[in-house]
């Protein structure tokens, strides 16, 4: 492997002003399976591809509920995501306990960013090896944020992370301008289509697809047979397409979505 003298800890800059450990952490996200997030005026949607390490094993959980109005999807090290989601759940509860109001999505994203940033500035600690998309609905409407282990948090209209997410991004860039006025079903449809662009020789199925939608009426997470109607919608419209091969285990890279369930 490539090596250099400035990547043995997260606190030493290289002479060119880079923090290699942090950049490597960003690479870990690309090892995880793809996830897509997109927003309309009234809804925010996540569509994610689940992976299973072996045919006999279960699929890794991708979407984690934080509160009735807030959810995240992860790409990268799942155990790290669990730490972050438990942290965020605590903060969401704190907001309810102290102020009797759901935590704002912007605030939630900022809290995660601050937590991740700390790991990039103390010797001996490791940046989180996971990227997140955060969706939520609060008093200022629907929101989508991308979280990175570098401590960056940015607001998006639509975005994708994980393995081969560039395909989804291209699709979203082409179509995002029409998303604002879509209803929930149409928005999910676009999300599913975007996720399709990340596949090489596999298909979306009920067992490897997770869908989450949040809006005025709260959060709904669809798994297994519940995603069927959304998949059908898409396959009916574009017949032919890709021929199926193997199962939905995504790409040939190392499995990084950890084992903790």
């Amino acid at each position, binding site marked *: 492997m490539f090596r250099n003298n400035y990547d043995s800890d997260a606190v030493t800059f290289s002479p060119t002003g880079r923090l290699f450990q942090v950049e490597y952490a960003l690479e870990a996200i690309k090892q995880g399976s793809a996830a897509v997030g997109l927003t309309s005026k009234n809804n925010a949607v996540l569509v994610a591809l689940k992976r299973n390490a072996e045919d006999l094993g279960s699929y890794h959980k991708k979407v984690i509920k934080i509160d009735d109005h807030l959810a995240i999807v992860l790409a990268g090290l799942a155990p790290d995501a669990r730490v972050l989601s438990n942290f965020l759940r605590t903060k969401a509860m704190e907001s309810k*306990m*102290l*102020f*009797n*109001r759901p935590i*704002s999505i*912007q*605030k939630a994203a*900022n809290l995660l960013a601050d937590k991740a940033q700390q790991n990039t500035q103390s010797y001996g600690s490791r940046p989180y090896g996971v990227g997140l998309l955060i969706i939520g609905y*609060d*008093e*200022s409407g629907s929101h989508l944020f991308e979280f990175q282990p570098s401590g960056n948090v940015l607001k998006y209209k639509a975005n994708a992370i994980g393995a081969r997410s560039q395909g989804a991004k291209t699709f979203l860039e082409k179509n995002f301008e029409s998303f604002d006025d879509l209803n929930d079903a149409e928005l999910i449809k676009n999300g599913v289509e975007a996720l399709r662009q990340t596949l090489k020789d596999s298909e979306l199925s009920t067992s490897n697809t997770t869908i989450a939608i949040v809006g005025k009426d709260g959060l709904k997470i669809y798994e297994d047979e519940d995603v069927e109607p959304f998949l059908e919608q898409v396959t009916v419209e574009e017949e032919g397409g890709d021929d199926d091969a193997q199962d939905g285990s995504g790409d040939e890279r190392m499995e990084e979505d950890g084992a903790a369930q």
Partner: protein
Amino acid sequence: MEHDPFKWGRPDNATYGDYDYRISNAKNTEFPSMHTQQPIVTGTSVIAIKYKNGIVMAADNLGSYGSLARFSNIERLIPVGKDTVVGISGDISDLQYIERALDELEVENDYDGASHPFKANHIHEYLNKLLYQRRSKLNPLWNAVVVAGINSDNEPFLAHNDLLGVQFSSPTLATGFGAHLAIPLLRKVADKEEDVAHVTKEQAREAILQSMKVLFYRDARSSNRFSLVTIDKDTGISFEKDLKVENMSWKYAETIKGYGNLQKF
């Protein structure tokens, strides 16, 4: 052999027992640290009533030191954000502590770019947790607090909170003496939540002014100068300071019958 040089030349633990570190940690002050056991400078009643579109609330400007009218220009109605006013009675130093806590809270909340201002119900919840936490440490903030404003559903909100963390809500609220003298007058205007829809701003204001007068007549710790605030869900907060109790009558009550031994049954 004792290897720790810090223990050399000291009485041996085996012989004399462990050194009691409370001795070296004891504070070298005249008094031990104390929790509030009684209020010192106090403010008297806060009264409030809901009307169709909002709330009227009032409190006088006096800070009493026991029976001494010590400070005559204390503001006890504290605006928090754009649609909440907190009325505080009880200890004035604790009032000022709460004032600072609320100010800090707002600054903290504004750090996030997107603005998510606190509404009246959020402020009330926070104060309730603060007061209950302090009572649970047996170190209470010696106050009764009325939170008036507009809540997250854009409806008038009125709730009471005290030094024990006891919390309740009602169309009319009053702390201290006001609970005995003003509440009966205010409940004539709005007794049930359903009545509120028929109460106008003018009626509510009139009832509050009348109650402030009765309180000044009968509460020996009150003053005739007060502040009044109207929080309307359409027009927001309007503050009136330096109001005075008007149209008082201190005439000898010669026409009043029914006191003492003249009482007829």
